[in-house]
């Protein structure tokens, strides 16, 4: 470990000086206000329609969903989503808890929920995609590998640095989202109760284990799950970066995989074996909120296993290739 620290330090300085992380902060700084503004408009319109009483809008949402259940054009899986949604909303009404209590914390929770499968992985990809390939494009890899340091240590230090920045990115997304949306919605809401523990059984929700947690704890759990997803995405992007010489190509490959994932999630329920792809398993936070998984038979344990296998496999490939490879250019 003593000889790894200086290497990690090197990689950290490079990461900062390359300004990759600043780009991420900048992206957040531009996009979060946009989402905040959009949410503000939605809130305004709801207030116009339902007044300040959230129960009305929740009840209306329930009724609307009940109505669409009657439509024969609605695919079966969507019906399942809606039935579950209706049961959850009723649970909130029964316990007199507003699922969308306005506030910076609630906005952040919902934003992170939506960001976990595509937005944050894209940010992570921006960090990871060039961590090895850029050394190849600029030729600095020759300087790096002709030093009296084993190759696996060089790669390992890059991996550790990447994981450090994965954590920082997840945290930065949270902090920036909270700070910016709080300006509009206020900074309150950390101790508001949120329900979790909905156990899904087909289209039925088992409410026996539902319990309320304060929103700060919910966010804590949510961020932990997002971190895991991000770490796996980082490992995959890391592998691509080792395998592909050009940074542009490695970004394109990862981006295609992620976007394919978000498309598949919306239509894959008919294709059962798609659940073994890492891209459809990125929405771990769904298990927390009780949103049904895109494919029958997916559980938290299953998704974690699939992601872990993908992540570990890409690490194995990365290290095997990197330590054996001839550096020809």
């Amino acid at each position, binding site marked *: 470990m003593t000889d790894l620290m200086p290497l990690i330090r090197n990689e950290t300085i490079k990461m900062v000086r390359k300004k990759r992380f600043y780009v991420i902060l900048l992206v957040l700084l531009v996009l979060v206000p946009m989402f905040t503004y959009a949410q503000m408009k939605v809130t305004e319109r709801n207030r116009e329609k339902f007044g300040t*009483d959230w129960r009305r809008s929740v009840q209306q949402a329930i009724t609307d969903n009940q109505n669409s259940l*009657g439509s024969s054009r609605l695919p079966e899986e969507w019906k399942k989503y809606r039935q579950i949604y209706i049961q959850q909303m009723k649970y909130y009404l029964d316990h*007199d808890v507003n699922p969308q209590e306005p506030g910076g914390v609630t906005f952040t929770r919902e934003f992170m929920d939506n960001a976990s499968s595509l937005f944050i992985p894209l940010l992570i990809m921006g960090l990871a995609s060039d961590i090895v390939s850029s050394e190849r494009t600029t030729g600095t890899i020759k300087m790096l590998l002709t030093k009296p340091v084993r190759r696996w240590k060089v790669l390992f230090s890059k991996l550790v640095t990447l994981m450090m920045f994965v954590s920082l990115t997840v945290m930065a997304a949270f902090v920036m989202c909270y700070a910016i949306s709080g300006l509009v919605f206020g900074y309150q809401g950390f101790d508001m109760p949120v329900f*979790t523990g909905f*156990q899904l059984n087909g289209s039925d929700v088992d409410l026996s284990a539902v319990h309320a947690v304060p929103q700060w704890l919910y966010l804590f759990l949510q961020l932990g799950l997002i*971190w895991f997803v991000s770490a796996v995405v980082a490992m995959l992007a890391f592998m691509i970066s080792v395998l592909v010489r050009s940074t542009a190509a490695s970004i394109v490959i990862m981006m295609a995989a992620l976007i394919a994932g978000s498309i598949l999630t919306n239509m894959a329920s008919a294709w059962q074996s798609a659940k073994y792809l890492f891209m459809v398993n990125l929405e771990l936070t769904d298990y927390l909120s009780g949103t049904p998984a895109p494919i029958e038979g997916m559980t938290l344990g299953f998704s974690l296993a699939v992601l872990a296998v993908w992540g570990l496999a890409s690490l194995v490939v990365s290290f095997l290739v990197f330590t054996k490879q001839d550096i020809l250019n």
Partner: protein
Amino acid sequence: MRSTAKLWRMISLLSGIATVLLICGFFYAVKDISNPSSAAGISVSPGADSGSEQPAPSASDEIGIVAIGDSLAKGTGDDEGEGFAGRTVELLKQENPGREVKLYGNLGINGLLTTGLLDELKENGVQHMLKEANVILLSIGGNDLFQGAEALEEGGDLPTAAELNKAIDEASVRLAAVIPAIKKLNPEAALIYVGLYNPFSDIEQMRAIGNTGVTRWNTAAQTAVNKYSGALMIPTYDLFAGNLERFLSSDHFHPNGDGYEQIAQRIVQSLKQ
């Protein structure tokens, strides 16, 4: 040189803390999701904040309208999607320019039967909404009577007079329970029950049976409504009789926009009294 040392110290510290926190969050989340029943939750006291948040609609000058019931309440068949509820709001706004008129919500559900409505009335959210309203618009019974309507569309059998009578007998008992249930929730609000019309008056075999049935039903409804002050029924039978072409939508069962407009006008008139 000094700056990179400081930078390194800061980043390693921050990311170290962040990583530890996130990993803890991750394991906590896995534990909570995979074994939710053992997880400690905080207790939520429903009374605590509902009292403070409960708006008092009567205090303000606002007219709050809630529609409840079947597809007619929802407005099925209206190309503009307004239904009589939306149209009533519009008309009231025109007539009362000074007052705030709002549709608090439309709880109409397609195909709802009287049994379904009784269940609905037990829901917290539904109760809450009804409690807040000044005006409650109710439409129910059509599906109980003409359950075969869709079967008819698809070429099924028409209900016989005996079947229809049996349905009316059973449903009117339930309607008689619906009215007090709503009144109990909100004694203040004006409850307006929208009566039935016979959508089949232009079909030879159905005209007589339908007319008799609808009349029987409306009479039963009138009886149920009359028991309560602030509750009234508005007739639609006469509106549609002979005007089916004009007021029915293409599904030959629900009113079209003009039909709903007619109903809304009657509602507004009845509210003036």
